[in-house]
């Protein structure tokens, strides 16, 4: 069960990603985002079962592969997911940087513009 090894690895990836995401600092959160993406991708890859070393490519002289290949579908799914998570990551990173520029902090504790600390009590009259 080669999947067991990867399952454990995915668990580690996920845990590390969560730990990083729980940080207060935007750059660490960004690192968490990358690791989270990898955790998700690896988990799809693992869930689709693993085959060693045989890529799902049909040799030029055949119409269908002779030997069992790795499962192509999860690969396609992961590919899509990689691209998407990369796009999101790039956006988030630039967002974090812009937030840092304009909010002068990379600490989420201090990012209190949208929901300010001193939130006024609404009027109690009519």
């Amino acid at each position, binding site marked *: 069960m*080669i999947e*067991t*090894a990867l399952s454990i*690895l995915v668990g580690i990836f996920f845990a590390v990603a969560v730990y990083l995401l729980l940080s*207060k*600092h935007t750059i*660490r959160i960004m690192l968490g985002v990358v690791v989270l993406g990898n955790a998700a991708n690896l*988990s799809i890859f693992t869930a689709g079962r693993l*085959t060693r070393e045989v*890529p799902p490519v049909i040799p030029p002289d055949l119409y269908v592969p002779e030997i069992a290949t790795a499962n192509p579908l999860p690969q396609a799914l992961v590919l899509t997911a990689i691209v998407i998570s990369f796009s999101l990551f790039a956006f988030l990173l630039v967002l974090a940087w812009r937030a840092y520029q304009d909010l002068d902090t990379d600490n989420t504790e201090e990012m209190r513009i949208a929901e300010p600390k001193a939130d006024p009590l609404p009027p109690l009259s009519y």
Partner: protein
Amino acid sequence: METDGNSLTFIALFLPFVAAALAPALTRRMGHKAAWVLAIVPAFLFIHFASLVGTVASGEAVTGSRNWVPSLGVEFSWFLDGLSLTFALLITGIGTFIVLYSGGYLKGHAHLGRFFSFILMFMGAMQGLVISDSFLMFFVFWELTSITSFLLIGFDHSREASRRSAMQALIVTGMGGLALLAGLLVIWNATGATSLSALLETDNALRESALYGLAFVLILGGAFTKSAQFPFHFWLPNAMEAPTPVSAYLHSATMVKAGVYLLMRLNPVMGDTALWETVLPLFGGVTLLVGGFLAVRQSDLKLMLAYTTVASLGLLVMLTGFGSEHAIEAAVLYLIAHSLFKGALFMVAGIIDHEAGSRDVTRLGGLRKAMPITFGAALVAAISMGGLPPLFGFLAKEEIYYALGFASVWSALFTLVAILGNALMFAIGFAVALKPFLGPEVKTPNHAHEGPPLLWLGPVVLAGASLLAALVSPLTHRLFSIPMASAVAGEPLDIYISLIPSIGMPLLLSLVTVALGYAIYRTLGDVRARVGAALIAIGWGPDRGFDQVLRGIVRGAHRLTGLIQNGRMETYMTLTFAVIALAFLVPLVGAGEMPAFPQLPVLTLYEIVVLALAVIGLGAVLYADDRLTAIVSLGIQGFAVALIFLLFGAPDLGFTQFMVETLSVVILALVMTRLKLAKSDHRPTREKALDVTVASLCGLGLMLALFKVTSLTFDPALSVFFTEYSRVIAHGRNIVNVILVDYRGVDTMGEIAVVMAAGLAILALVRVRLGRRVEHAEPQVASESRETVA
């Protein structure tokens, strides 16, 4: 049963709203005289309903329907029997005069058109309410009365008191409306009936249902709030903030009686139970007394009348709940009487206010000469209210005492309550009708004189109607009282009472009432002071409580929201991941989906190294004590992942992963040049413990999930198909790519949409900057070079 009258009834339901829509434009053109035109609508409706009196009096109900929401079994249906028809007549009849009165009262007001509009909508809602048959239609119109009265009470919106009263009315009656809705739905469940007429045919079904208690409480919630029963009575006097025509309309014929209407309507199927006959009289009786005493406390004409309305409503509820035939007859008679005299008196109060400039009874007097017609109308109405012959109020009062009697301790108690309440109302009625007119002339803010016909027409006609109805009481009974009482009782009843008093207990009690009432009237100033002192001693009341509750809710909401939505990203993330961890683990443990411990794999040395590389990379990211190290370390785990993909036969993935990982690092490096670099965070131990726990549980959850999933046998059908036809049909040897561009090309289409959107969004982020508040200058392609060539 589809008759011509029915089509007209259908139209009647919309007519007031059409008139309401036209009112502003009409008023803009005709000024206050638009009242004459607009009054045609209620007058017409009155005539229409009057034309049905014969049919209904003969014991037949006029019903009809149109399709509305068949999917929900809801029809747009109406039901005109003695009860609803009498209400409809009162609403449209009084409505006619109210429209006219409004024209006179608010003559020259900038928003008279709007006012007409509101009052017509209100009338339409009220009319719809009483003639609705289907539950939901009933509910819709019920809520519309709340909403339109909200608008009317808040008409003078620049005053805070108006706004407060409007909100109060909306909230209290809105609350009741929701209870009513629930109640109706419960009844629907219990009986299967979706309309009132169908419900009335179910006989004992509701009473015997297990849901009766629930339905009872919910229906009472609706009725008591709407009809201002103690302890929900406070909104009604506050509603006096509305212009007087509104008060007159709302509090005489209409909205406040909606609750009574509801109770009367449901009496045949809900009444006659111990619950009904205990709770209703008790609340009604208390309300009667509370209303009476609070009325005495007041010196403002409108408020005095308003509190007596509360009292009257209490009386009506008490009678309706009492359950005996006579009680029902009494309720019916009193309801009609009250509509007529209270409408008239409110309008009188308005006229006094309008003409003399004050409504304070202590500052008014001697107006009889200046306003003889008004005085006459007021006097007649007050006599009816006092229960004196020869007015309709007398009939009602006689019937009341006849109904209650002294048959038991229970009925004796209510008889005493009724005597006290009626006496108080007697006193107030005469105080309103006599005090301002009799005695020496008092200087009033305005020089008082008789108002225009638009103003006095209403009170005069209503007062006249009180008299006429009593004079021709057999006819009145045959056409209105008996059909209505029969409808309320759910069985044919007969009413004989007339102006010719029969000697007996009722008459005696009437005399006691009058005597007591007169005594109170004479010492009104004194009583007022005493009650006032008592109330001050009590201090707190539901009215002030309303404000306190409201403020408490807002304050509490503010505090609670601040606690949960606290603006701290960390809280949000921690909670979210905690939930995610639970989502993995609870079903695994709770639903028996826990995997068996899987076989350990046999790995080659280099596979181990690659896996180790990934873990080392992760560790390095975690332990890196500066961020750049972390970023570089991030590259390691990325490469390791790519190598894993390669080792397990996924060259495309490895390929992409390498590229993406590299580009991620590149972008990180590009962005990092703009960040001031600081040390990475070190979390306090407690925080770290929490974070580690949450993170580990998440990781554990996903790992176990994967153990479980991979332990199942896998169905490779899709991939087999893809492999089979990849080359021979889709012309591609790289199956992964064929999936990407052909089998599942739509995914890829979405994927590139994401890529493009991300590019666009990042461009916007980079270019559009705060401070300058303008976009960063877009470099012109093929313009001057900015190269740094030496």
